[in-house]
């Protein structure tokens, strides 16, 4: 391999130094967490189907980082980044992935079903697009209460071909809900490219007839994404929803950990690696002198140390009592 091409600059003109460093910190926490999860999956210390978002952390950081705790996030099966960026503590997320009683969901949810009510993460789901209607209902409740809370739902481009997506977009537009639909378009629905699933190239085209604000943005340009979402959020807060934001992004890992990835195009992958959102923003932060090399190293090391603490916390946490499953089938009267 020759000299690596430098990453294209991030449009950090949109950011101030403090915000940029906050975003970098969040992205490092997600990156280090997920790299550790990939390792732990190989030794079966975390359980079940594990879907990583490495290469897509910029979307979670730029969006969740601008939300309040009382704004709601719904996510799909690739949800670790959204949970962490929304405020879920690393140690409790790790314990959840290990099925331990101190996990976010007491060990009963797992990687695909993270919920952190205190931070407004009302849930991930293993059913593609399954949470889009729930987000519609959440936004409806916010509107009926007369609050300025905003609901964000993350989904992949594979979800756009479901009936849930079409029905939910129609409901959200009809009811003028404070809902921001965030599509992370990584170009792949499981193992096959978008072109094998639909003739509609951009998700914005699929919702064009509804005439609500809709933009496609480069999901690896965190500065630009941050600014676009800030404007969207402002509109949604003022009751001008729904809106759709399509983030063109990439997943550097397989659909799930263990995926053979026979479908992956090596050339395109190298290009996406060059456009890694974390590398881009960090290079730009250094160029802007918000950070020096040592500071960048410290961010990464700090995140890795926190992840190791999370692993220790999770390993020390007991598995739930067997009775817990029976106790949580039904909620009791309050």
């Amino acid at each position, binding site marked *: 391999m020759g000299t690596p091409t430098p990453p294209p600059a991030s449009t950090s003109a949109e950011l101030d130094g403090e915000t940029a460093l906050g975003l970098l910190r969040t992205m490092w926490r997600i990156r280090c967490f997920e790299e550790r999860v990939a390792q732990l999956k190989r030794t079966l210390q975390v359980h079940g189907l594990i879907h990583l978002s490495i290469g897509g952390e910029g979307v979670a950081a730029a969006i969740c980082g601008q939300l309040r705790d009382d704004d709601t996030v719904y996510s799909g099966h690739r949800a670790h980044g959204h949970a962490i960026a929304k405020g879920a503590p690393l140690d409790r997320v790790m314990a959840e992935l290990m099925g331990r009683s101190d996990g976010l*969901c007491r060990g009963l949810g797992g990687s695909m079903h993270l919920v952190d009510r205190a931070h407004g993460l*009302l*849930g991930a789901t293993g*059913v593609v697009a399954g949470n889009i209607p729930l987000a519609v*209902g*959440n936004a409806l409740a916010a509107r009926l209460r007369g609050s300025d809370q905003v609901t964000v739902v993350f989904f992949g481009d594979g979800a756009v071909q479901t009936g849930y997506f079409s029905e939910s977009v129609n409901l959200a537009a009809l009811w003028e809900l404070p809902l921001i639909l965030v599509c992370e378009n990584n170009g792949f629905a499981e193992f096959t490219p978008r072109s094998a699933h639909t003739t509609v190239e951009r998700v914005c085209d699929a919702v064009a007839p509804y005439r609500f604000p809709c933009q496609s943005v480069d999901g690896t340009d965190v500065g630009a994404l941050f600014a676009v979402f800030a404007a969207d959020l402002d509109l949604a807060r003022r009751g001008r929803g729904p809106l759709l934001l399509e983030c063109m992004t990439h997943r550097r890992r397989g659909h799930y950990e263990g995926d053979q990835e026979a479908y992956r195009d090596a050339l395109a992958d190298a290009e996406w690696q060059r456009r890694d959102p974390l590398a881009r923003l960090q290079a730009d932060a250094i160029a802007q002198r918000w950070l020096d090399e040592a500071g960048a190293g410290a961010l990464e090391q700090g995140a890795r140390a926190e992840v190791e603490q999370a692993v220790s916390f999770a390993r020390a946490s007991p598995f739930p009592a067997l009775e817990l499953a029976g106790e949580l089938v039904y909620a009791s009267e309050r």
Partner: protein
Amino acid sequence: MAEVQTTFVKAINAALARAMRADERVIVLGEDVAEGGPYTTTAGLAEEFGIERVINTPISEAAVCGAAIGAAQAGLRPVVEIMFIDFLTLALDQLVNQAAKAHFMSGGQLTVPLVVRTQGGAGSRSGAQHSQSLEAWLTHVPGLKVVMPSCAADAAGLLASAIADPNPVVFVENKSLYFRRELAPEDPAPVPLGRARTLRPGRDLTIVALSRLVGEALSAAEQLASDGIEAEVIDPRTLTPLDLDTIAESVRRTGRAVVAHEAVYTGGFGAEIAAQLQAAAFDFLKAPIQRVGAPFTPVPVSPPLEDAYRPGAAEIHRAARIAAHWDEPFAASPEPGAVTAP
């Protein structure tokens, strides 16, 4: 308590209005609900509570059910109407994968105080996509509660409890019960979920019947009385949770049981009741538990075929006679053609 003349539909309507007056978190949504719906169950609600709380929806059962789940997770108490239980199939993913599991999978962080009202049952010549009884599917899902009232008073009382319940409750009505004149308390008290009602005492035989078949069981019991057989009639009222204690106590006394519903016999909830009963009362049984259900065909539209399809008092009577005479060595054979065999 003062009783008034009413109908099942009016009782549902009044119960919804009472719940909405008492708790502003209660909203109603579904196709045409602000117009009252095809059976007038929601008539007048939009006028009293406004279209912000009585929300017409497009024909999008899946997303509407999901939106109701999301609203419930956000603290509202939605009552979503699925016009025909046949269309609940479109919303089953939301009910089964989201509503039923949210409390469990979140480690107790989320609750889904949701009621899904729907109606089923044959008899309206509407054909096999508007006439089914699909409640058994719902009882197979941990996390859902399933309610099937058989009369106006219970409908009102059970709906109040379902709306107050912190769990997703599917409230299955039967369209042929909707417009019969009934007496019900003027101000019906909530009926707790999970408590069966004994409508008629009897020493010889227990009939457990669901929804429309409860009235049919009472007719059959009258006829059985004239045959010299005293049948006890029990309406479980809720399938999940099931009040097995009341049913098993009765069967331990009578030693014989018939379980009757309008749903297809094969895989019907009667099979579950029979299985639980034989485990709870095996030593007391003097005859195999008899089941009454519809034959294993889609619901026919042609009037004579649909009439033959729908189980009723005659089928219950026949099954009861088999149970009652089982251990009499020289009893006459039951008539052929009973729909009590698979």
